[in-house]
């Protein structure tokens, strides 16, 4: 019978363990178990990706985001004012899979826009960009600038959430159609690519978003973007005003397809 070379060590270890107080032994075993469990948990949490389940409602001031938010959630009409903070609520998409997204309505005012976008952009599964179709002609450059800022943000570029451009206020007679808005935005973004890349760098040396929209050499088109872009028409107020329903079926269908 070969002698186990570690036998004397095992013997001495056994002797030492028996000499110890059993309470101390139990304490040591519990501590080791806790450490092991913590390591397992950390590994689990660190490797899991952040779940992206938010649908962000963004757009210029007064484009109808808050009313759209209310219509999507409850179908009712409520008066709204300029939002100064975000509102969020769970939204059940009308499809067979019955998935719930978190619908988040961000304020559109220029001074608050970027702060709230910073907070929520990493969790975005889809971005609903609301455009006021009635006064679009006057606001083309502002809309395009906001859209440009959104599309060239490095985080948004990396995540590539679905972009739904909703042309709101279709109940007004002078509202432009979605196709026209798409063409105008493409033209405007084409120009903005050039002027923005020539813009001055910031005073601490940091340069703005280094993402170049679309393909160099060719005119900008929304199909060149890495994310899915869709243009929809809808009217949050609806043709009958306060009493009727809003006309948001196309938006609900697109949200169901996410």
């Amino acid at each position, binding site marked *: 019978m070969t002698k186990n070379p570690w036998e004397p060590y095992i013997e001495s270890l056994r002797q030492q363990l028996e000499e110890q107080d059993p309470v101390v032994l139990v304490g040591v075993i519990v501590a080791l178990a806790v450490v092991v469990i913590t390591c397992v948990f950390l590994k689990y949490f660190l490797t899991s990706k952040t779940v992206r389940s938010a649908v962000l409602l963004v757009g210029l001031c*007064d484009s109808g985001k*808050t009313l759209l*938010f*209310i219509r999507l*959630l*409850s179908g*009712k009409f*409520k*008066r*709204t*004012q*300029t*939002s*100064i*903070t*975000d*509102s*969020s*609520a*769970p939204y059940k998409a009308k499809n067979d899979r019955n998935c719930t997204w978190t619908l988040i*309505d961000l*304020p559109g*005012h*220029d*001074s*608050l*826009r*970027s*702060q709230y976008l910073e907070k929520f952009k990493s969790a975005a599964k889809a971005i609903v960009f609301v455009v006021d179709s009635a006064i679009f002609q006057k606001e083309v*450059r*502002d809309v395009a*600038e906001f859209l440009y800022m959104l599309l060239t943000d490095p985080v948004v570029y990396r995540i590539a959430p679905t972009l739904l451009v909703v042309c709101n206020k279709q109940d007004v007679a002078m509202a432009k159609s979605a196709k026209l808005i798409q063409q105008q935005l493409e033209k405007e973004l084409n*120009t*903005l690519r050039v*002027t*923005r890349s*020539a*813009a*001055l*760098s*910031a*005073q*601490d040396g*940091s340069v703005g978003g280094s993402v170049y929209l679309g393909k160099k050499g060719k005119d900008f088109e929304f199909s060149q973007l890495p994310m899915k872009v869709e243009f929809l028409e809808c009217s949050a107020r609806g043709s009958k005003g306060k009493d009727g329903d809003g006309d948001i079926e196309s938006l609900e269908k697109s949200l169901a397809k996410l």
Partner: protein
Amino acid sequence: MLDFFTIFSKGGIVLWCFQGAGVSESFTGPVNALIRSVILQERGGNNSFTHEALSLKYKLDNEFELIFVVGFQKILTLTYVDKFIDDVQLHFRDRYKNELEQKGALKLLNNTFDFEDRFKKLLREAEETSKARSPVPMRSFKESEKSQKTVKSMIETKGGDKSKEQGGKKNKNTKKEGKRRGCLYFNCILFIMMIFTTRSKSPKPPKPKGKVNRVWDNGGSSTKNLDYSNKNGETSLGEDQKNLEAQFDPVSSPWPEPSGGFGGMFGMLKGLVGSKSLSREDMEPVLEKMRDHLIAKNVAADISSQLCESVAKKLEGKVMGTFTTVASTVKQALQDSLVQILQPKRRVDILRDVMEAQSQRRPFVITFCGVNGVGKSTNLAKISYWLIENGFSVLIAACDTFRAGAVEQLRTHQRRLNSLHPPEKHGGRPVVQLYEKGYGKDAAGIAMEAIAYARNQAFDVVLVDTAGRMQDNAPLMTALAKLIAVNMPDLVLFVGEALVGNEAVDQLVKFNQALADHSMSDKPRLIDGIVLTKFDTIDDKVGAAISMTYITGQPIVFVGTGQTYNDLRSLNARAVVGALMKA
């Protein structure tokens, strides 16, 4: 009497509204104007705002994230409005506490808030109390205090004789009516008690006072106190300790004395962990420190106090999260408001606007104004370099006809810029041209001719350089206002140096005032943007940026960081706020 009353959440959903009888206009416009001008521009110090014919008062409820706004005609002076808003807020909170406490917007949407009858009752009560307090009738001479005094008592003598006389006279008047009788008797009793206590001391004969050495408060008694050779290392430590203590004070305030027992222990834990709502007293020390910190960083003094007031209003009643201290909440809120102030309220893209003007076949006119010596001509040259680099042709209008060498300075810049971008490479035409008419002429006339010349020769941009002038100099301010009103430039840029402190407020206010007063139209052209120069000379004392944007509400378009053509930057709001909040 009220035009309207609304209650809406900070997310924008109107929970309940009331429109006065006979009022047909929607109140959405005025309330939006209130939100944009006051709340978003951090001018929340005083709670009233006038918009056209209406006067609006508001109140923030930070615990449930609600805003209460009341509007009434400006010409009426209603005295019960402040108290009325407070009452309505309390009643609304009590009644709908359950619905409001739920986080998330769904509860707000699904509930209809039937506040109508309660509101009408409160309104009736408020109106009645204001009517009940009818104007007080004037007192007759016999009732006034002056008739109580004797002539002798009103003569000042050395010694304590006056009070004795007054007390005696007061005792005589017994015929009084109304509530004042009780008050008067109470006062009499107090006086009698006072007289008896003073009578117990025997009046001392006044001593002839010799000359006494005057003692100053700050002056020491001997020079031994000025010897700091032993204490050299200690004073700095003492100051640091004081700072640490000041920081820890807000946290330690919920800690009761150790002899409090278990009740005290629970209170302390609750203050640290549980939901504690912020009150003015908690925030006061932190806000004081923040105000001093901002002033030390070169933010103008009254703007710092207005900012701190606005942050206090925003945080009052807010429920803090677990393990957050008062100091960190206040700091975070202040940081957010500063970033909000520095973010431009409109699109700032000069190149795009120049392209727009190009497509309309007219030149884009930029005017530079400011006080003496801030760097207008230097930064004008830098901006023209940037524009040339991007392919535009520039005409410089030398409207500084006062300062010696101003025209020559611009001519030198023109020559240098043309040598950097020779005309052969740009279609045979020099990219920069100078339009000047020498010295002593009228600046507004030169500007008008320059713009007409640019339109004829198809220049893309006209940069108008004006003479530096002090804001108090009325004739020069009138001349500047005339130049701007007559020529209607596309962009009026105020050039201010980053070294300026409290002066920035005065400069900007007076410049804007002059531009508004001397313009004929009802929509006067005011300052559209700010150029912040000499930014490289300040380390992290970047407060001037905040002062200037707060006063005008206009964005900082360019930042000048040196004397060469390349030293032109744009503003990064976060970096500036980071430098500002850094300790």
